[in-house]
């Protein structure tokens, strides 16, 4: 598969602060590529650079063969964008929002109606085309944004935290649509998330933290990297020495997460009786788990990803929204 996005030593600084600290990755045409990282990792900043909305401090990025710095218009025509925060005009109907987009992206009038039918069907909004977007739920707005992003047949669709703040059912539906899109239309999808379980859906994942990529691989390969199963031991009372003793006894690296101790073992199941006899009386619980991306992240970065729903900006937007709907309409 040819590479559709190439990023080389990309750096973005805001004043003294480095948001993206020299990252490299390539994305193949037709894959779902995920950026996994906590809030503030630099995911949105990277997307904005690729979408020509921000200029990199240094480094190079090309999309569909076009340099983002020298050919911004070609890059823009080649991408569809679903921003982290909503970007629809909710005083217009779904159809009018799509019409607006078609005009800006030079979709000819003759094919607009057919395209609109297509994309609305893809996200199951066909019957709501003439409703004002204001009357849509959060999930419907997201789906409409995805439909809009596809209207001009972009080579790459960017989805910045497409499922943030949505209920699990809607999140599943959106994933269903994204996979369908990749399978039926062949669009390359570049998405960011800080939900570990969602990243499993990607063909390749880049794990990003503090502006640096820690690893890029398939979800399966990343998990294999952990080596073996994860053993979670819960101690009795506040046994301060348990962490140290476990590490010494089995010669493993133990991580304390909340009040439990995590470490890796080749075959976890056979290992359980040994722990029980070695630490009888000091162990309250033992669990064996297949490694998850959460563990991969923990291993690579030394800390757990924080699941913060709704940033300060979201709260502000909501406040303004209330004020606006009360005052302006």
């Amino acid at each position: 598969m040819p590479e559709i996005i190439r990023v080389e030593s990309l750096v973005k600084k805001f004043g003294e602060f480095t948001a993206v600290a020299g990252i490299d990755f390539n994305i193949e045409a037709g894959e779902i590529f995920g950026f996994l990282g906590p809030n503030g990792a630099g995911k949105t900043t990277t997307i904005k650079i690729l979408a020509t909305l921000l200029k990199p401090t240094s480094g190079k990025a090309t999309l569909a063969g076009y340099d983002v710095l020298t050919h911004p218009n070609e890059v823009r025509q080649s991408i569809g964008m679903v921003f982290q925060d909503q970007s629809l005009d909710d005083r217009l109907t779904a159809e009018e929002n799509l019409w607006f987009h078609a005009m800006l992206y030079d979709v000819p009038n003759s094919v607009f109606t057919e395209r609109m039918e297509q994309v609305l069907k893809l996200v199951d909004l066909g019957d709501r085309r003439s409703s004002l977007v204001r009357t849509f739920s959060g999930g419907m707005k997201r789906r409409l944004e995805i439909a809009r992003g596809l209207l001009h047949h972009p080579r790459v669709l960017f989805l910045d935290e497409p499922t943030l703040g949505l209920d699990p059912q809607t999140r599943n539906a959106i994933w269903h649509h994204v996979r369908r899109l990749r399978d039926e239309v062949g669009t390359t999808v570049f998405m960011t998330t800080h939900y570990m379980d969602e990243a499993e859906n990607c063909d390749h994942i880049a794990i990003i933290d503090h502006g640096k990529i820690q690893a890029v691989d398939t979800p399966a390969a990343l998990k294999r990297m952990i080596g073996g199963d994860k053993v979670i031991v819960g101690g009795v009372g506040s046994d301060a020495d348990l962490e140290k003793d476990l590490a010494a006894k089995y010669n493993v690296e133990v991580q304390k997460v909340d009040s439990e101790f995590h470490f890796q073992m080749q075959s976890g199941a056979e290992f359980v009786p040994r722990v029980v006899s070695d630490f009888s009386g000091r162990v309250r619980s033992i669990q064996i788990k297949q490694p998850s991306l959460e563990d991969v992240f923990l291993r690579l970065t030394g800390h757990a990803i924080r699941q913060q729903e709704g940033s300060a900006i979201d709260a502000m937007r909501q406040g303004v929204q209330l004020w606006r709907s009360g005052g302006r309409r």
Partner: protein
Amino acid sequence: MKALKVIYTIWFREYKTFMREKGRIVAMIGQPLLYLLILGKGITAGMSLKGSSDVDYLRFMYPGIIGMSILFTSIFSSISIIWDREFGFLKEVLVAPVPRWAVAVGKCFGGATIAMIQSVILIVMAPLVGISLSVLMIVELLILSFLISFAVTSLGVIIASRMQSMQSFQMVMNFLVMPLYFLSGAMFPMSSAPTWMKPLMMADPLTYGVDALRNVVFSETMIVVAGNVQQPLVEVARTAGLIRWSLSFDVAVMTASAMLLAVAGAWVFSKSN
């Protein structure tokens, strides 16, 4: 070609969303009515114009009220840039493969169109203040409204492009819009202003807009002056110093200002996003 399409698209959205805001339309009708009522019944009673007792204050004020309505409507239109930024829609426009200056120009056309609708509402009220209308005059008024509004919306675009929040926009507006209005000669003629204020009034582009509006609004009305003689209102006003320049001079200054501000607006908008 592409740029024209973008201008049209942005314009059409401004127009469409405006038509959906019933509250704004009600305000556009109610506000001038209120002003005319207050001025007509209140201020006029205790006011006469120095050296021009033949022109009553309400007639003098009517073109100024048109000017004021255009001013406020246009500024309100340019605020939509800040709304769009706050609610995210601006990003959809900025990430599209379109020239940004065309987006700004589309906004200016949108604002100017809405201001023309505001003018129509005011023109309909002309008989209420004793002003006669003709078709030519209505056409001239619409063109003037467009021109003035285009200039003011452009100014609004310049400011809105640099503002991050609604609050700061309102601050700037209070420091800019109100002086622009008070200095435009809409409320008191330049002839009765103190000497130090006159250069400021001359520097206010709206001054020429209001002068042009008076030129046009007064053109069809005859009034009775001392000795029961009928005279065109426009002549009386000119003699009294209420109209200072010719219509063509006013239009030339307004056109130049509008072009300059529009270019500046398009430039600032492109640079700041």
